[in-house]
């Protein structure tokens, strides 16, 4: 349509298809939020494992590593923390506020008892890595069968 080209940057705003595209994008974002963290579900964990240990990774960007609290008890792992909002100064107006703020706490069940003393955690580029070795006493032992 020739007449829309004359409107410059407003041309996109009048095009119903681009509006629909924006709406779809927004919907996907909102829906993904329901499938993803609610306050009790945040943050999301990925769990990796071998027979001897599990590695739990979690995306929690913008958190000071020192504010993360990790506790292990038996087969459960609890991660707690806090993300502070950007300090509101005078004369600041928000156009968008989608990022998540506040306290979080999440507990998950692991496949075996953890050697709590040997748990290690590392925080890099907004991702938390927790390495949890399996308790020695619980590791399976091979039993040799003696022939009579």
């Amino acid at each position: 349509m020739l007449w829309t080209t004359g409107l410059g940057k407003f041309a996109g705003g009048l095009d119903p298809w681009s509006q629909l595209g924006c709406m779809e994008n927004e919907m996907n974002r909102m829906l993904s939020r329901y499938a993803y963290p609610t306050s009790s579900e945040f943050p999301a964990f990925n769990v990796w494992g071998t027979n001897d240990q599990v590695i739990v990774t979690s995306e929690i960007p913008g958190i000071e590593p020192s504010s993360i609290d990790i506790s292990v008890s038996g087969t459960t792992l609890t991660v707690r923390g806090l993300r502070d909002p950007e300090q509101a100064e005078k004369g600041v107006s928000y156009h968008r506020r989608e990022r998540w703020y506040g306290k979080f706490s999440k507990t998950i069940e692991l496949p075996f008892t953890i050697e709590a003393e040997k748990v290690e955690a590392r925080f890099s580029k907004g991702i938390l890595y927790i390495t949890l070795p399996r308790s020695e006493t619980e590791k399976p032992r091979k039993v040799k069968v003696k022939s009579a």
Partner: protein
Amino acid sequence: MSEVTKEVQDKDRAQVERTRSTNVYTPDVDILEKDDSIIVLADIPGVSESGVDITLEKDVLSIFAKVEPEVPEKHQLLRTEYGIGDYQRSFTISNEIDREKIDATVKNGVLRLVLPKAKAVQTRKITVQAG
């Protein structure tokens, strides 16, 4: 006000295929406006400073962040609650931005983009003359 930073659905871009086969996610953002600048905060966990590519073409600001996935070796994935991939998002910025002074930093997986407004568009008071 929301006009200032409208999200762009770039139709042309959507049709261009990417060479990397990773997933692409829409990062959560906060956009705030101060008297002298616009600040964009985006959650991009797994991306280091060198992996961020920001372009401002005409009035379209595009953020692309390339993730460097750290996957534990010889481990089996037992539970997945989040996916790993690159981040991409575009906005139209209707304010005049001082392009030379755009500043981007990445800390703890959060991109902080400071777009200083050009001097000419910083608050101008217009007095109405009584006729």
